[in-house]
């Protein structure tokens, strides 16, 4: 693939997503503590999902600022000449500290998942904390996250706690869809049906017109089928047009 083809492929990257409050927050009349961001710029196309830790008093603020700090980090990283994936994620936490000021980091703790379709054709995916960061490469699903080896539901690493990022860089033209989801979604997806879930997003949801797509996705999240679910739910998707993956 030539660099011009990469640029052309990148310019066709689409993103969409939706976020809804979970029953727990709705019952308490509290706002959604998940946040997501999707933006295209000179760097390419970026999606971010952040889930504020429910036990923290400024979780929503922390999650929002995680999205903004990630965008700032991507911009600065792109401006400085596109280093490695490590270089990119290392920039996020200091910027998040700047953004959450004057509040304490422990009050604002939030997870951070990002997927960046870079102008040069590479795709960067990184995850800190719970949730799902999954990409489909050559038809196979790959999850970019540390297994929750020791914890239980709602126990996670986060920004502000010196957590360990899971990160991957996918070379040109490998990826045809990248999906980020908060733990409210990822914990209830059957592991054996993850590929079908991603197919559904790509074939049934991504093909809708943008406003219909947003409404449709919100409706699905609001009518979440798992019984007695509680968490806020967020999905953000980067998708490449069918037929442009090779």
């Amino acid at each position, binding site marked *: 693939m030539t660099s011009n083809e990469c640029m052309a492929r990148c310019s066709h990257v689409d993103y969409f997503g939706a976020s809804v409050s979970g029953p727990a927050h709705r019952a308490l009349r509290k706002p959604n503590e998940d946040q997501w961001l999707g933006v295209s710029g000179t760097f390419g196309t970026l999606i971010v999902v952040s889930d504020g830790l429910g036990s923290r008093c400024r979780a929503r603020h922390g999650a929002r600022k995680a999205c903004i700090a990630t965008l700032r980090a991507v911009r600065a990283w792109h401006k400085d000449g596109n280093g490695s994936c490590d270089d990119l994620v290392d920039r996020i936490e200091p910027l998040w500290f700047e953004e959450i000021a004057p509040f304490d980091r422990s009050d604002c703790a939030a997870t951070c998942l990002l997927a960046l379709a870079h102008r040069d054709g590479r795709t960067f995916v990184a995850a800190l904390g719970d949730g799902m960061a999954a990409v489909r490469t050559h038809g196979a699903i790959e999850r970019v996250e540390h297994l929750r080896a020791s914890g239980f539901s709602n*126990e996670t690493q986060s920004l502000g706690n010196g957590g360990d990022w899971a990160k991957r860089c996918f070379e040109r033209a490998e990826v045809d869809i990248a999906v980020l989801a908060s733990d409210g979604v990822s914990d209830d997806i059957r592991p054996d049906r993850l590929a079908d879930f991603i197919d559904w997003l790509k074939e049934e949801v991504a093909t809708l017109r943008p406003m219909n797509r*947003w409404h449709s996705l919100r409706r699905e999240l609001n009518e979440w089928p798992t019984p007695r679910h509680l968490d806020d739910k967020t999905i953000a998707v980067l998708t490449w047009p069918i037929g442009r993956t090779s």
Partner: protein
Amino acid sequence: MGWAKYHEDNISRYWRDAKTKVRMERMTEAPPFKKPSSNNDLGKIRLLRRRLAENPSDLQAQQAFHAEKARLEKLGVSPNELLGIIHGDAPSTPATASDNDIAQGRKKVLKDFTIATARPLPVIVLADVSGSMSANGKIDALNDAIQSMIESFATEDHSRAEIHVAVIVFGKGDARLHQSLLPATEINWERVGAAGNTPMGAAFDLVVKMVEDHEQIPSRAYRPTVVLVSDGQPTDEWREPLRRLLASDRASKASRFALGIGDDADPAMLAEFLADPSARVYSAHEARQIKNFFRWVTMSVTQRTRSMNPNSVVVIDPTALDDYDF
């Protein structure tokens, strides 16, 4: 289309108000030219078809379906392609799994990919069934108390989690899993008899094995509760197994309750099991006090499952029980 399409989402609202460079970039960039694709155009009508297949009397869907059909006809979508979707006939394009689903009026829905059960909240009881438990009706009281606890969990209507119960018994020479971890609604309690010594260390090993097993207790589960009931000193090596329990990644996070029965119980050892200076070891000298203890455990667990965060530890004051006299 930029931020406006997600105007109800919080970040978008924030950025729209902030009038940042993001929005400027979106506005100054020429929108990528998108050739109208039949796939894009047909997405909505496919969804509406699906909704109608599920609920043919949905008037709103019917109206939207006809409006969408008229719009597509205006756009010049191939009549064969459109008819294939509307009537479930063979599509003009090569068949795919989803097209076949449409033809059968069955499309993939989110329900197909999600777990159909609520998140589990495991309760693991470590019950001493050594020979000394057969005295003074203690084993009968323990059986009744566990049965009553399971029945209470099974009939809990306001729970935000599905309570699963396992019972590990230690006595008769070894520790064993008497009741495997199952939803309380599926358990038919089989009474257990008392005999043998008190191999508590082996029971600790079993509970660690169970809690660390991601097949039995998945990571979506809420933090488990472990209840230890004993009327005597352990007869096997218990310090090292207890150290392993308290040092393990997952078992150490469990909320723990302990009950010592009779004068022979070792409160210091039970306090080590709790490993929390603020937690209290309860003692029972009569059979009914065993039942009271389990009522208290039941209340604590059900309060957790009713709370907005079932992972949080809810401390119920035992004096809240009417006939409290531990």
